[in-house]
């Protein structure tokens, strides 16, 4: 097994120490940070995302893989800057105003990072104005809104309206337990996803 495959394998199993050790070894062998990221970490996270979508793995497996990926990416960060590697796009993500649930949003964030996207996480209880402000500050390609409650999902419509009012050149995607395709269409959002892995793919398609 090549060292890149080994890194990918260990990352999928959530083995932080092994991932760090193998990345150090790969860098010593002269493998570029870009290659480690693009040929080991990101494909590994893709596999986890696909398995999650197909109910082959569950939330704990995704969480430990994402933790290992972040540990690896942290080591690679200075090398990637040196090599001039850029993010594939920027997403501003948050749970909408009035809603304090964040596990779904966090899963989406991890999947998006696993695609090589820069994700600006605004946390929970985020107003439409704050989404727009952060998107502008970060020159985002996508705003991703999450809601668990039917009582809060109405705020997504405000986000879409604010984006239009401010003439921002970006896409708004939405997700969460009560969200449906028809709701997405009714508020004029650009896309909706019923699971974290598909949300990341959707965001990628807009970057």
């Amino acid at each position, binding site marked *: 097994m090549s060292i890149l495959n080994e890194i990918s394998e260990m990352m999928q199993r*959530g083995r932080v120490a092994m991932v760090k050790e193998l990345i150090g070894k790969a860098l010593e062998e002269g493998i570029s940070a870009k290659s480690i990221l693009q040929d080991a970490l990101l494909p590994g996270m893709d596999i986890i995302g696909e398995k999650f979508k197909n109910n082959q793995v*569950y*939330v*704990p497996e995704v969480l*430990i893989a994402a933790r290992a990926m972040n540990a690896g990416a942290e080591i690679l960060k200075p090398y990637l800057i040196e090599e001039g590697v850029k993010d594939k796009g920027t997403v501003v993500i948050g749970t909408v105003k009035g809603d304090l649930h964040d*596990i779904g949003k966090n899963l989406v964030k991890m999947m998006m990072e696993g695609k090589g996207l820069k994700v600006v996480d605004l946390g929970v209880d985020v107003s439409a104005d704050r989404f727009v402000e952060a998107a502008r500050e970060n020159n985002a390609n996508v705003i991703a809104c999450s809601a668990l*409650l*039917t*009582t809060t999902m109405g705020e997504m419509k405000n986000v879409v309206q604010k984006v239009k009012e401010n003439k921002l050149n970006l896409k708004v995607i939405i997700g969460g337990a009560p969200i449906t395709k028809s709701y997405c269409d009714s508020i004029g959002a650009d896309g909706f996803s019923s699971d974290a892995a598909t949300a990341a793919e959707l965001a990628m398609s807009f970057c």
Partner: protein
Amino acid sequence: MTSFELVSKTIKGEPTPKTPLYGWVSFNMSDKICAKFGCVENFEDHYEFDLAHIFGGPAYHNTAAISQLHEQHIEITPEVYLNIPLPPVDNMDGYSSIINTLDFYKKSRKRFCYLQTNGIFECLNEVFGIENHLMYLLLYPEELKMVYQRQAEWNRKFALNAIELGVDMIHVSDDWGGQNNLLFSKELWHDMIYPYHKITCDAVRNSGAFLSLHSDGHILPLIDDIIKLEYQLIHPWQESAAMPYKEYLTKYSEKIAIMGGINIQSTLGFGKYEFLKAEIERVFATLKGKRWICCTSHFVQEHCSIDELIYAYDLAYKLAKQ
């Protein structure tokens, strides 16, 4: 027939003259209900609620020590947590609210009283944080089992103390489901959760009290094991989380009762009265007499108006009696 008898018979699957009625209305709706009815108890009396949902009891973890660690940004792993003793479960001062509530609902109203308790997973989410907790299931399984064992013993004693005070049913709250699937694999649940639920379940069933489970989300793959644990009632059977009533009626209604039916996520509280009426009628037509207690699927949300709540319960009350 008293409410206690009605609910007991329903849970056991015996014929009853009406459908038991209840609702999780007090949490968000108290002010609106009080303005219209004087107090929540008057609302409950007006609709002849058959159950009382009781909260309270001693603290189940050392709040001060946990807060201190959180403030210091120290990660509370299972190993760290095992060094923090649990508060005493036999300190009866912690049970005063349970005693007072039982006095009111059980003695004077003859209602079926069930006590909310935290399941092994839910009660440790506050300590670890849910995401860390989910990761610890895979990262520190052996240490986590030791934490669960300790907590399960505490939960068992708490349940038995409450039963001794007169609680009719121990209601274990432990969310295991997502919108379309389990939060963790069935195998992991079996290895990590099942044995520590069994400790409380066995104790409660051996005492002769009733036993129920609350879990939001899709838990269909676990129903057989939930029955094996001798849970007698599930709240809610969440139709909106890919748990069709048909599945319940064809496979499980002989073995376990369900409570719910008035969906607060999509039905009650949206001002769509015709839809609300049609939904309540549909649920009654589907579940009435099938080991079912009519109740809200969760706490009624604060966006529900008092008029809509009254509209829903006027109808449910009428249908329950038919």
